C-alpha cells in the first residue's frame, strides 16, 4: 500500500497548491457547468519524451472504459502516436476493454481511489454503463468524460427521440427491420423467441443481460466528472494536453487544472478557426455537401447553402471538417455562454433566409413552408447534444 499512500500524498500537496479535483465519493450526479478552458489549444504540445521511466512514486493506475459508444474514442487514444509509450511509462492500464484484460472483478477488488485516472467514453444507455461508470467513479481519483457521447450524449442520445423508448426500438430491431422480419417469417419463430430477455433461467443457473434505458444520459448526468474532452472523436491535441497535465502531475507534483475544465477548447466559436471567408449571402434552399458540384473551398459553407453548425459550436478542433469541404456537425458542443447548442445554431441559420418582398402579407403557414427546406431540424441541429438539451427526450401529448 506504500505506493498508494504516495500517490495520495502527491494529491494532497497539489490540493493545497491549486484547487485540484477532490472527487467526492458517491457524489450525487450533478451536471457540472463547463468552465472556461484553462488550456489554450494553441499552446505548444510536447512530443514523446524518450526514457521517461516510471514516476518517482511508482506507476499510477489508469482505467479506460467505453459505455454507449462506437469505439472511435478508444481508437483515437492511439492517435497520440509515440506519446502512447509515455502512457505505459507512467501507468499500469488496469482496465481497457478494447485492449487489455482487466475485468470488472479486478476493479471491484481495488480500494476506493486506487485508480488515479479513469477515462470514460460513451453515453450512459443501459444498466451496465451506469454500473461501470459508478464503479470507476468510486475507485478513481480523477474521472475524465471523453468524447462527444460522454460529454453531450452524442449519436446514441438520438434514441431519446423514439417516443416508445427502448421497447419500440427493440421491437423494431428484432421484428421490423427486413433481416429480422424475413428471419421470423422463414423460421416460423415468434418475436418472444428472438427478443433478448434481461433474465434467463438456464439449467446451469440464471443468466442476466443489462437493461436498456429509455433516456440516454451523459456521463456527468450519472456521476461526478472532473474533466471533459469533447469531440467525435477528440483530437490528438486535446489528448496530448491531458497527457501533459498528467505527466506534470504524476512526475513533478504540478497542480492539475481546476475541476470542470473542458480540455482542448477555445473561448470562441468554430467560425473563428475556420479558414473560409463569409459574404453573408442569403439562402433560400439548403444542400447536402454531395449535392453541390463545386464547393467553393474558400467561401463560408452557409453562404453556399450547406448547413454548417460551426456558428454555434465551440472552437478547439482546428476545423478539420470545413477544411475538407464538409460542414461542421457540432461534435464539440455549445459555446460557453450557451446551454442549448441546437437552438443557438438554428437561430443563426434561420436568419440567413431572406426577407421577401411580400413578407408583410405572408402568414405563419407560409413561413413553415419556407423553412421546411430544412429536413429533420431536431436530428440535424441536435445531432450530438440531445442529452444536454433542455427537453432531452420525446414527449407524448395527452400521455400519463
Amino acid at each position: 500500500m506504500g505506493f498508494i499512500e504516495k500517490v495520495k500524498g502527491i494529491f494532497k500537496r497539489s490540493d493545497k497548491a491549486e484547487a485540484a479535483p477532490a472527487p467526492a465519493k458517491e457524489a450525487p450526479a450533478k451536471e457540472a457547468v463547463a468552465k472556461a478552458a484553462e488550456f489554450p489549444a494553441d499552446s505548444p504540445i510536447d512530443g514523446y519524451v524518450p526514457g521517461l521511466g516510471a514516476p518517482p512514486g511508482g506507476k499510477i493506475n489508469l482505467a479506460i472504459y467505453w459505455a454507449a459508444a462506437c469505439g472511435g474514442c478508444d481508437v483515437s487514444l492511439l492517435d497520440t502516436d509515440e506519446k502512447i509509450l509515455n502512457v505505459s511509462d507512467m501507468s499500469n492500464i488496469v482496465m481497457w476493454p478494447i485492449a487489455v484484460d482487466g475485468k470488472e472483478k479486478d476493479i471491484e477488488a481495488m480500494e476506493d481511489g486506487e485508480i488515479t485516472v479513469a477515462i470514460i467514453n460513451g453515453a450512459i444507455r443501459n444498466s451496465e454503463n451506469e454500473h461501470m461508470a459508478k464503479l470507476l467513479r468510486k475507485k478513481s481519483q480523477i474521472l475524465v468524460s471523453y468524447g462527444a457521447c460522454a460529454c453531450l450524449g452524442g449519436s446514441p442520445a438520438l434514441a431519446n427521440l423514439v417516443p416508445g423508448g427502448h421497447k419500440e426500438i427493440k421491437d423494431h430491431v428484432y421484428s421490423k427491420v427486413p433481416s429480422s422480419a424475413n428471419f421470423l417469417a422463414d423460421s416460423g419463430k415468434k418475436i418472444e423467441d428472438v427478443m433478448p430477455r434481461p433474465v434467463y433461467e438456464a439449467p446451469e443457473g440464471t443468466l442476466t443481460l443489462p437493461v436498456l434505458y429509455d433516456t440516454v444520459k451523459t456521463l456527468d448526468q450519472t456521476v461526478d466528472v472532473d474533466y471533459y474532452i469533447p469531440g467525435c472523436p477528440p483530437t490528438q491535441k486535446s489528448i496530448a494536453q491531458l497527457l501533459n497535465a498528467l505527466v506534470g502531475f504524476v512526475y513533478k507534483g504540478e497542480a492539475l487544472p481546476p475541476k470542470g475544465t473542458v480540455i482542448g477548447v477555445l473561448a470562441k466559436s468554430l467560425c473563428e478557426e475556420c479558414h473560409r471567408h463569409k459574404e453573408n449571402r442569403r439562402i433560400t434552399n439548403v444542400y447536402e455537401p454531395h449535392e453541390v458540384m463545386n464547393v467553393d473551398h474558400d467561401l463560408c459553407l452557409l453562404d453556399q447553402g450547406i448547413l454548417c453548425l460551426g456558428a454555434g459550436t465551440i472552437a478547439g478542433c482546428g476545423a478539420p471538417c470545413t477544411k475538407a469541404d464538409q460542414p461542421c456537425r457540432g461534435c464539440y458542443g455549445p459555446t460557453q455562454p450557451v446551454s442549448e447548442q441546437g437552438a443557438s445554431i438554428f437561430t443563426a441559420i434561420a436568419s440567413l433566409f431572406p426577407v421577401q418582398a411580400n413578407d408583410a402579407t405572408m402568414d405563419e403557414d407560409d413561413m413553415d413552408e419556407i423553412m421546411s427546406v430544412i429536413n429533420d431540424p431536431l436530428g440535424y441541429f441536435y445531432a450530438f447534444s440531445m442529452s444536454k438539451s433542455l427537453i432531452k427526450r420525446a414527449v407524448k401529448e395527452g400521455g400519463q
Partner: protein
Amino acid sequence: MADFEPKIVAFCCNWCSYAGADGAGVARMQMPTNFRVIRTMCSARVDPEHVLRAFSKGADGVLILGCHPADCHYIGGNYRARRRIALLRMILDQYGFDPKRMKLEWVSASEGEKFQKTVTEFVDTIKALGPSPVRSKEA
C-alpha cells in the same frame, strides 16, 4: 380536466405588444390571468432557447408577441423571429409537443383588444390540449 389552469409564458416586444398589453389593462379589458408577461426589446430577442426553457420548466404554452410585419422598431427583427419560430415549431413537433402550444402573433401598441383576444383564445387552446407533456411526465 375542467379545473386545469394552464401556465402560459408570453414574450412581448417592448415597442408594440407590451404597450398593447398595457392598453388592454388601461381599458380594463377582461381576460384570463394564466399568462406571465416577459418583456423583451424585440420579438427577435426571444431566443428559441428561452421558449424551450419555458417548456422544460413546465410551461403549458408559450406566446410570442411582436410588432406587425413591416412595423418592427428595429426594421427587420420580426422577420427573423418568424423564421426562427417556424423552425422551432418544427422542432417542438418532432419532440412530440402539439405545435399549437407555441403561438406567434402580431399585436401593435394600439391593439389592446387584439391582445385580449389573442390571450383568451390561446388560453382556450391550451385548456383544450391539457397540461404540458413535460409536466405530466414529472407528475
